[in-house]
């Protein structure tokens, strides 16, 4: 956000939050710490049984894991009673703790209308203020927020037909690679990601199929994510989200896992969770990202954690071992002719 922007009013706070959250009309409780710490959104408790998990989840974040000095609480929803009860319960729990933050403002937001619980004032979000924030973020090249959180999932659905035309051939080619050809293919994947970081050009269908065909190899995934940092994670997310949109269902899990990781590292928990929801079955990486989200781990330490040494013989062997699974329900392959797939010829089958 540009430093000319100031958050000195409820209108400005409510115009800023969609850009932080990634969606314009959140539902539930949004907590915004002042002076560091994660912004959060959580559904309001729908039943009495859900009240304690709601409160303990948020107090775990703001009293223990990411303590803060001051926090704004904003309850979004049409049910005024539920919003006001949640605000009262949460603020009480936070201020009762001897190390708890100051709480304020506390707002109930219903559409464009807001009600300040502490000041007993009401207002409507000024469209000019909202437009000013939108313009500032647009000038920075930021993607505009989607309308609702549910739209994050819709943005991960696309037409797989184009890639599907090339997938069988790409699979066949990947499965018949020997170690040398696989190493070359892994290097190609790494360079493809590096090129995308520079030019943001999405791969055409044959190359997208080629990426998807090699992603089941852990060495390929390592190569794909070697350059991943917090700073460029957003660009990685664009790449993997595009592939999730275009991937046929049988090869969608791998890019979805990688999208979950890059989304988590860019700090976008909602998108990371939505990517995980795309998986038909969790793999190890998805399980780890899930733990990171549930433990509310700040991704900033990713850049300081050194990756395991690449010289590890066992790891190298594992990375280069042919590991493509053959359980996809594709058509029977006949011969070695693989039209429609670009890239160097594969070597003789390794089995």
């Amino acid at each position: 956000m540009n430093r000319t922007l100031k958050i000195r009013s409820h209108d400005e706070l409510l115009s800023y939050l969609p850009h932080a959250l990634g969606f314009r009309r959140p539902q539930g409780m949004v907590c915004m710490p002042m002076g560091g710490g994660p912004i959060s959104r959580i559904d309001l408790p729908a039943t009495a049984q859900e009240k304690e998990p709601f409160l303990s989840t948020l107090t775990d974040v703001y009293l223990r894991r990411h303590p803060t000095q001051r926090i704004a609480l904003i309850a979004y929803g049409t049910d005024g009673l539920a919003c006001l009860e949640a605000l009262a319960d949460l603020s009480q729990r936070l201020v009762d703790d001897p190390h708890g933050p100051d709480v304020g403002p506390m707002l109930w937001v219903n559409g464009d209308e807001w009600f300040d619980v502490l000041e007993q004032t009401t207002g409507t979000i000024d469209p000019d203020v909202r437009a000013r924030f939108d313009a500032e973020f647009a000038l920075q090249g930021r993607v505009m927020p989607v309308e609702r959180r549910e739209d994050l999932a819709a943005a991960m659905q696309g037409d797989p037909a184009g890639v599907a035309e090339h997938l069988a051939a790409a699979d066949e080619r990947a499965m018949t690679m020997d170690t040398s050809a696989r190493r070359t293919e892994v290097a190609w994947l790494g360079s493809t990601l590096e090129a995308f970081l520079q030019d943001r050009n999405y791969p055409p269908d044959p190359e997208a199929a080629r990426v998807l065909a090699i992603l089941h190899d852990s060495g390929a995934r390592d190569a794909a994510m070697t350059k991943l940092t917090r700073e460029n994670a957003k660009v990685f997310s664009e790449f993997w989200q595009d592939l999730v949109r275009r991937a046929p269902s049988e090869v969608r899990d791998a890019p979805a896992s990688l999208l979950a990781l890059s989304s988590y590292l860019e700090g976008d928990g909602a998108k990371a969770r939505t990517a995980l929801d795309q998986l038909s079955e969790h793999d190890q990486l998805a399980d780890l990202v899930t733990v990171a989200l549930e433990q509310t781990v700040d991704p900033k330490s990713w850049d300081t954690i050194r990756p395991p040494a690449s010289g590890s013989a066992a790891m190298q062997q594992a990375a280069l071992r042919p590991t493509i699974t053959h359980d996809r329900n594709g058509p029977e392959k006949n011969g070695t002719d693989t039209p429609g797939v670009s890239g160097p010829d594969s070597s003789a089958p390794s089995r």
Partner: protein
Amino acid sequence: MQNTRSRVEARLERMLATTPPAAERMAPTSARIDLVFLAEDDQRRLDQSIREP
């Protein structure tokens, strides 16, 4: 997907190992929460923007 831990997974596992486990919660399951961790620059700008002029 294979069971061998990749370097990406091992790196993430190391990161998680440096984080203390979640506080014990009164309910058996926690609620699902979306967190936004701002990038360093964005956080700094936000901190500046909420200061009094």
